């Protein structure tokens, strides 16, 4: 968790110049990056996303939560002098001098249509909806591409073996950015395969959590109706007050 915290701190730090309107005269360190082939001088402490905005781009795609959770800002880049094509989330990655990059606003990949309740809990569900999983050559390119550091190839292999639990464990932190799918030589849409697997595991494979069952029963018995009615009837000011005073995790 400590790395996550420090990463979030770094992001917050890196965006300060924009969010607080620091004058560019005060910026000491600059780098040059190439966005779609064109060079821009940007403050060295920006993320790719804020650097693009600094350079004048208005992001209407490839931009979402800005916190590394939504998966909208998939980016492909090369470092100066490096042969390796790298992938990242623009909101989570600091610019580097000489970096050449482009954002991938959308990954065309059809999500299969299915009714989880009507499917058989068997490995055949994958070959039925995503038969291309069998084309996996275990090259591991998907794993290299994953900005969440998931073992993507391992979960594709788990799908082939029909191991729903292993698939769920390995893919749980997927944010569906699609970078695996755009790099896969077997043209598998790994994140859709994983979602199917997790849905199947959720319905058929994992035990129903006791606390959830109890809470649903409480709701159905009307235990929270009064509290809800109270909120619905509250004034805007009262709601604001309650929101500010709510129980919450520390930042």
């Amino acid at each position, binding site marked *: 968790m400590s790395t996550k915290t420090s990463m979030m701190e770094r992001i917050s730090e890196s965006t300060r110049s924009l969010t607080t309107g620091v004058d560019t005269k005060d910026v000491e360190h600059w780098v040059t990056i190439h966005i779609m082939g064109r060079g821009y001088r940007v403050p060295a402490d920006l993320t790719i996303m804020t650097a693009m905005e600094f350079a004048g781009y208005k992001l209407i795609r490839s931009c979402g939560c800005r916190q590394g959770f939504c998966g909208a800002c998939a980016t492909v880049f090369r470092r100066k002098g490096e042969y390796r094509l790298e992938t990242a989330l623009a909101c989570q990655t600091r610019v580097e001098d000489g970096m050449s990059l482009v954002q991938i606003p959308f990954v065309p990949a059809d999500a299969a249509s299915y009714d989880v309740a009507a499917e058989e809990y068997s*490995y055949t569900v994958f070959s039925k909806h995503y038969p291309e999983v069998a084309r*996996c*050559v*275990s*090259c591991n390119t998907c794993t*290299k591409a994953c900005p969440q550091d998931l073992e993507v190839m*391992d979960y594709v292999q788990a799908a082939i*073996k029909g191991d729903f639990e292993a698939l769920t464990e390995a893919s749980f932190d997927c944010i569906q950015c699609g970078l695996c799918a755009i790099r896969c030589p077997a043209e598998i849409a790994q994140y859709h395969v994983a979602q199917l697997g997790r849905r199947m595991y959720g319905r058929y494979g994992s035990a129903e959590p006791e606390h959830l069952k109890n809470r649903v029963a409480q709701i159905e018995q009307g235990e929270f109706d009064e509290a809800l009615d109270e909120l619905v009837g509250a004034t805007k000011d009262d709601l604001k007050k309650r929101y500010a005073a709510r129980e919450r995790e520390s930042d």
Partner: protein
Amino acid sequence: MTQDKASRARGDRREAGSGGTRLPYYPGCTLKTTARNLEDSALAVARALGIELVELPRWNCCGVVASLTDDDLMRHLAPLRNLIRVQEANAAGIVEDEMRLVTLCSMCFNTLKRTNARVAERPEDLEKLNDLMYKEEDYEGGVEVVHFLEILREIDPETIRRNVKRPLEGLKVAPYYGCTLLRPKEIGIDDPERPTAQDDIIRELGAEVVDNPRKTVCCGSYQTVANKDAVADLAYDILTHARAAGADVLTTFCPLCAFNLDNRQREVAARHPDFEHMPVLYLTQLMALAFGLGEEACRFDLNFVDPAGVLEASQLVKEES
């Protein structure tokens, strides 16, 4: 791993069956899905013989037929990655100085062993593949891909006989090999023309070996997807020759052969009205039966042609009362 360490691992090999032998084991996708009767029976038989088959951590699809292509090196990443996992399993202490990788599915055996042989012959291919692996350590070439049948053949016949609780007396068994255990001959585990690798074991179980002249004929392999009828005709030929030789059952080690010879009997019967169904079993299922390991080890429930009739006739299983 150095060459030195690899050869020591081979030289140090303990006699299988001498108790507590732990061998890295590669299952393959089919054994986890449609061919659980091969895996369940083999693991139970191995345990009875004092061999622990330790499932290789993080194994992936062997690569299957695609990896036999000569001009598409990327197809060899899958088999090679599995060989690297053997190195990792040794390094992690999951197995101890044991570079033999045991396979059960003959197709996986063939694929893994061919890639292993290819990279041994062509160091430039190995270098290129290692380079593409990215995070994994390099493959050093010290793994030996073996088939479970080879392990069984190393075991003292007396040990096998001692495990037989219910001799398969009167049962006539036609061992079948198909292609992938035998060809190409550098990869095969027996004479590609006249294989006998299953014979001794079948006799040690108390059964009679029937020689089927079609035991090395191809089952039709993946033609089964696009050309069911051609495969049904091959199955008819193989099974009727076994029948003519007097066989009650046919044994194999390959899930694809088993599918073509067992499940395809539906199509065989439709095309050949004279056809008489014959149970097709994994050799390890017969072993589990003779060892008295119970239904959860035999897994006859997963065979298409129910062997109960034949086994009852030979008084090997109790008739349902």
